[in-house]
């Protein structure tokens, strides 16, 4: 469910890969798309995963604020993934749970469970650019990354911290996105993103995300342990630390239903 962690599979885009033109005739746009599709393809078949996420919010003066969230994800073949997040900290939102069904061809569906009121509330998923839990991550930065949610352009090959990377630009197709473009540094061997720059609606550099400490699970899936987002305009930053990654834990579709929202521990 996290940007740069994986890219979703789509029958359509997979088919496009099969019929993609030869290298000789490739335009920068086609090459950018091919790189995105390859990353997506390599992440297919993870089935489900669970992880603990610690968020450390830092303001300009360096004052820290902590959030702890448990995340469950379910792969959905032919559509966007489903994910469930249970908040453990801060204590005043303890037990609050959010459920997202992301979709590739229609708006995502989202619900929020408020334990103090025993209330499940359906919420708008149109708010892409808003901050997630007051952090420097926008909802669109942590949402499910479908290949179709961007258009692409290959820029160049470049060395990034001694790794060979593709540098590609991607442009959000959603008009509610807070960005005009993003530039990604994608490691050529493993097809994982190491760095991502976000450009705001004015076209100026807003944020930089560095993904590091990648670990491989089930001999296939690469996940970063640390995501560091820096906002260049506000001077604030947010670090996400992932731990306890588990794959193919046997989660079912019914674990991602509206009724399952109330039953999380």
């Amino acid at each position, binding site marked *: 469910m996290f940007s740069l962690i994986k890219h979703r599979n789509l029958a359509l885009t997979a088919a496009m890969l099969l019929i993609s033109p030869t290298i000789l005739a490739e335009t920068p746009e086609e090459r950018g798309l091919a790189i995105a599709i390859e990353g997506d393809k390599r992440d297919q078949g993870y089935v489900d995963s669970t992880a603990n996420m610690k968020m450390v919010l830092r303001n300009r003066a360096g004052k820290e604020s902590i959030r702890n969230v448990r995340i469950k994800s379910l792969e959905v073949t032919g559509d966007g993934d489903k994910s469930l997040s249970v908040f453990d900290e801060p204590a005043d939102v*303890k037990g609050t749970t959010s459920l997202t069904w992301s979709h590739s061809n229609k708006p995502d569906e989202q619900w929020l469970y408020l334990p103090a009121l025993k209330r499940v509330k359906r919420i708008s998923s149109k708010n892409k650019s808003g*901050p997630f839990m007051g952090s420097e991550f926008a909802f669109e930065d942590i949402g499910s990354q479908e290949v179709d949610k961007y258009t692409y352009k290959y820029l160049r090959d470049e060395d990034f911290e001694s790794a060979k990377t593709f540098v590609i630009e991607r442009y959000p197709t959603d008009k509610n996105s807070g960005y005009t473009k993003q530039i990604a540094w994608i490691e050529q061997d493993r097809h994982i993103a190491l760095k991502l720059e976000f450009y705001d609606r004015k076209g100026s550099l807003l944020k930089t995300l560095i993904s590091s400490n990648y670990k491989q699970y089930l001999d296939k899936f690469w996940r970063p342990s640390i995501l560091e987002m820096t906002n260049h*305009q506000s001077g604030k930053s947010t670090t996400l630390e992932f731990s306890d990654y588990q794959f193919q834990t046997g989660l079912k579709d019914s674990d991602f239903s509206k009724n399952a929202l109330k039953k999380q521990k």
Partner: protein
Amino acid sequence: MHLKSRNNILKLLTPRSLLCATWLGKIWLGKVWLGTVWLCAAGPGYALDWRGNISTEFTYFPKSSVGTDNWNFNSSVAADVELSHDLADNIRLTVHPFVRWDQQDEERSRVGVKELVLSTSGDSWEFNAGLATVFWGVTESRNLVDIINQTDSVEDIAGDDKLGQLMLNFKWFSDYGDFEAYLLPQFHDRTFSGTNGRPFPGIAVDPDLTTYESSDGITPNDFALRWAHSFDSWDLGLHYFDGTSRDPLLIPQATATGVALAARYPQLQQVGLDAQGLYGDLAIKAELIHQNGNEIESHIEAVTGIEYTLVGLLSPLQDNEKLPTQWCNSDTRNPIKMLACNDRLDLGIVVEYLWDERGELSTHPFQSDLLAGLRFAFNDASSSDALLGLLQDLDGGATTLSLETSTRLFESYRLKVLGRQFLNTADDPSVSALKNESFLQLELSYFF
């Protein structure tokens, strides 16, 4: 951080040993005195989960009450904790005791249990037995369809606080929607402020005068059925309820010490509909009920309206080339810059119409009222928010202004400020006693 590590130690200890939780004290369900309850749960391998808070509340009423006791300042301390523990695979016990001490109102000082429920579930079903809380509804101002639990109005007159309801509940989840059935073998009277409590409604409710239409009194055979389903952008719910009205008729009655209100709980049949449509940033909401009974005139009530959210209200300012980034970043303490440069602020606009077919004969003051509200979400690290509301009786009646704002302090605390002002009460007999009851309240809560 200290708390977190302590939590972990407790979580490590509990599964390996016999877990015993003991609550001693006055625990009451309805008028049934349960005396001392001793509860012990043994469950090797299962951890105890909890969420709770301790809060301190200070309330100031600038004007003196029309009631017998004159006081302007109140303080109160409360604690509640919701504990859940898996007794076995897929059998969970939830216990939610609470306690409040109130300086002025003896009805508000109490110890009780909000939940004491056993739950079990499968992929497509769920079963709950015990004292539990269920929420139905979609609107902001008033939830007509939310009939299972009794309102705990001694906590707050807004009606959002609920008492636990004894129930046997079965839910079945299918492709045709969720089907729910409730057996409700016990009825709980609505709580009311005592003669010393404020906001004082003019005449106090005397609990000794309470009567029920049903000869079964507080042990009725109430039941409810519900169906709920989602269709693309719409969530729909339909329900049927047969039983004791949660909303009493309040009848003035002469007593040895003067006039008091007697609560009368009639029997009723209710059918209701709740619907919410979500179109991007616009939510359309409606709740509709029809009630009928021997002592209740057959009638319809409705609450309907919209909520529109302006996401990143001021971000167009940020996107404007004429507002340079440097200007925003040069002095972050300047309040004008703090506002103009906050591209994170979301503003929700809520408009709802409340209606009761009975008009002036309604048992509540919302026979034809309009709610206009502004909800600010600052989306900052402290999750600050504010809700400004105006409730206007459209039949030339009272105006209620309310402001509710809160922010997080020191990671685990939340500070809330609540103000309510009652205006134009003179022309509205149902709320005329509230003219001196405007108040300002400060609440500091510690969460764990």
